[in-house]
């Protein structure tokens, strides 16, 4: 284990602090607030530091090292062109406090990205400020809350979510002070309109839903659901986590939604995982636009002065009844620019991206669930489909209960065994409406060969000695961790000052 704080070179190695600019600055701090010991900061030389981080990176697994079918997370290849664009000096050498006239380039990218997201989602106004999908959810629900208040409808205090929702949906609504009403799915895993009709009322503020659902199924009755919620006076919120399946084919505006978030890091590529860095812009219909966080990028026509070249002057504008800021500065600018580069590179071909994402998911599902007869005969027990759908969208679920019941192998055991074969495990135990769930999302960037090999390896695991699977992983740098101990005995800080 390499620990940065174990480096303890000569004093002054690795870091130094300049003398304070104000004479006797130290004396101005009350003695009760001064620390008695110097902090034990690591003293690593540059090569030691480089080796430390290289060592860490070599123990990591990412989309650049192997297939990463983590459902709902859209771990696609990140085109390197994005990196070249984001490192242009006019983009990565600027400061958020620079005046508008000095950052016309970045502002024009922001404006164009807002417009492009409006087009692909059927919304009227986009803000790029939220830096994660969940923050986008919070922002949109806050805008909806202010909208209801502006109409004197403070009584609307409930947000409806289906039981297949991402956990962030109820969490975001609860953060805004709403009560959550969870409605059960129908037996086919889709929305139950009767349950929805029974749940809506004068107190309905909004419904939050992702489409395609977390089961990877397109909701066939989404327009009716929107009508039910709208007739009750509620707003429809679209969780854009699964946008990768429908981009260019249909859009949330057409389905009847009033607000939507996009995960730029998923749908439009940006290296992510382990919590970031992300970008979760939201788009809204015009009746919600005045409440968006400030500022958003705007432009006005100017006579060709040859300064910006496109005949517009770009500037930051605060919406008239803004909820305020949800993030310092202008969101995750690097992620916005990478996503813009991706969108501009593919343009209308993004429709083919969705087609390939859906094709890959259906192909992999078919390969796993329909092995040739020799393979099938060697497998003691097969998993079940997570949902009874003939065709899925960009992801699919498997129910591993038959294995658990007959040979004692759980979904988690199979997931851990996949690590030995050099894959990232699929999403485990989500959505919760599928027991012993494994959720696969291959994304559009994987070739048929990769999917064939993965299906072959997955089926091979099903033929293995259950003991090998139950004690996996065997070949990784860290074996199976004690999750119970880790959860019960949390260590949340480095024991730096305990020594």
């Amino acid at each position, binding site marked *: 284990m390499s620990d940065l704080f174990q480096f303890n070179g000569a004093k002054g190695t690795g870091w130094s602090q300049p003398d304070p600019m104000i004479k006797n600055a130290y004396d101005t701090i009350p003695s009760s607030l001064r620390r008695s010991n110097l902090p034990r900061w690591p003293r690593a030389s540059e090569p030691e530091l480089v080796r430390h981080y290289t060592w860490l990176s070599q123990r990591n697994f990412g989309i650049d090292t192997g297939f990463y079918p983590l459902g709902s997370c859209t771990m696609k290849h990140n085109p390197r062109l994005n990196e070249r664009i984001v490192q242009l000096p006019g983009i990565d050498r600027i400061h958020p406090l620079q005046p508008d006239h000095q950052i016309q380039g970045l502002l024009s990218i922001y404006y164009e990205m807002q417009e492009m997201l409006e087009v692909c989602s059927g919304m009227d106004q986009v803000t790029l400020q939220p830096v994660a999908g969940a923050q986008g959810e919070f922002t949109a629900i806050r805008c909806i809350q202010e909208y209801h208040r502006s109409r004197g409808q403070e009584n609307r205090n409930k947000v409806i979510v289906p039981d297949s929702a991402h956990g962030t949906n109820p969490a975001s609504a609860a953060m805004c002070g709403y009560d959550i009403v969870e409605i059960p799915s129908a037996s086919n895993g889709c929305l139950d309109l009767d349950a929805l009709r029974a749940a809506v009322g004068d107190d309905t503020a909004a419904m939050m839903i992702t489409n395609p659902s977390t089961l990877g199924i397109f909701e066939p009755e989404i327009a009716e659901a929107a009508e039910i919620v709208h007739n009750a006076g509620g707003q429809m919120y679209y969780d854009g986590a699964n946008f990768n399946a429908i981009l260019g084919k249909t859009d949330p505006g057409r389905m009847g939604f009033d607000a939507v978030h996009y995960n730029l890091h998923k749908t439009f590529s940006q290296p992510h995982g382990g919590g970031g860095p992300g970008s979760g812009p939201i788009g809204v219909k015009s009746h919600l636009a005045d409440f968006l966080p400030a500022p958003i990028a705007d432009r006005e026509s100017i006579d060709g002065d040859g300064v910006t070249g496109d005949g517009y002057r770009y500037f930051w504008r605060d919406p008239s009844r803004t909820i305020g800021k949800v993030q310092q500065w202008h969101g995750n600018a690097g992620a916005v620019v990478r996503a813009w580069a991706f969108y501009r590179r593919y343009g209308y071909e993004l429709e083919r991206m969705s087609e390939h994402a859906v094709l890959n998911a259906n192909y992999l599902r078919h390969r796993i669930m329909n092995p040739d007869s020799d393979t099938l005969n060697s497998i003691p027990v097969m998993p079940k489909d997570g949902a009874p759908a003939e065709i899925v969208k960009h992801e699919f679920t498997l129910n591993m209960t038959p294995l658990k019941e007959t040979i004692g192998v759980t979904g988690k055991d199979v997931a851990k065994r996949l690590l030995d074969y050099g894959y990232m495990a699929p999403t485990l*135990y*989500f959505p919760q409406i599928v027991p012993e769930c494994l959720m696969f999302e291959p994304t559009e960037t994987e070739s048929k060969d990769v999917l064939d090999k993965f299906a072959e390896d997955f089926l091979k695991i099903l033929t293995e000695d259950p003991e090998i699977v139950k004690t996996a992983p065997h070949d990784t740098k860290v074996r199976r961790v004690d999750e119970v101990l880790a959860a*019960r005995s949390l260590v949340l800080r480095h024991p730096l000052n305990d020594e």
Partner: protein
Amino acid sequence: MSQVPSNLKYTAEHEWVRIEGNDAVIGITDFAQDALTDVVWVELPETGVSVSEMEACGSVESVKSVSEIYAPIAGEITEVNESLEDSPEQINEDPYGNGWIWRMTVSDASQLDDLMDAVAYSAQLGE
């Protein structure tokens, strides 16, 4: 096959209710603890609080997921199993015994009739 003791009442949310005099004791079923896997944290309700039927009163967190626990009936929480704070694994080891979660009064005895008996709950589990 999970255990479904015949002397208890059950909810569709996989909770059990044991009537003791005028009180009801609440916990989660053997099926629920098995589906959750290792429980690592239990959020207990506060004593002295009145709750309505199907109100979320706490949660059980395992390495797999977090599940809310609902009040099967209306009443006042009179006692909580504080030993679960240090030893949440009792829910896995003894879901119908040491793994009990809270004790409450019964404000409307007719609500008990809405709960399932062991036969009906077993049928829901498909066992």
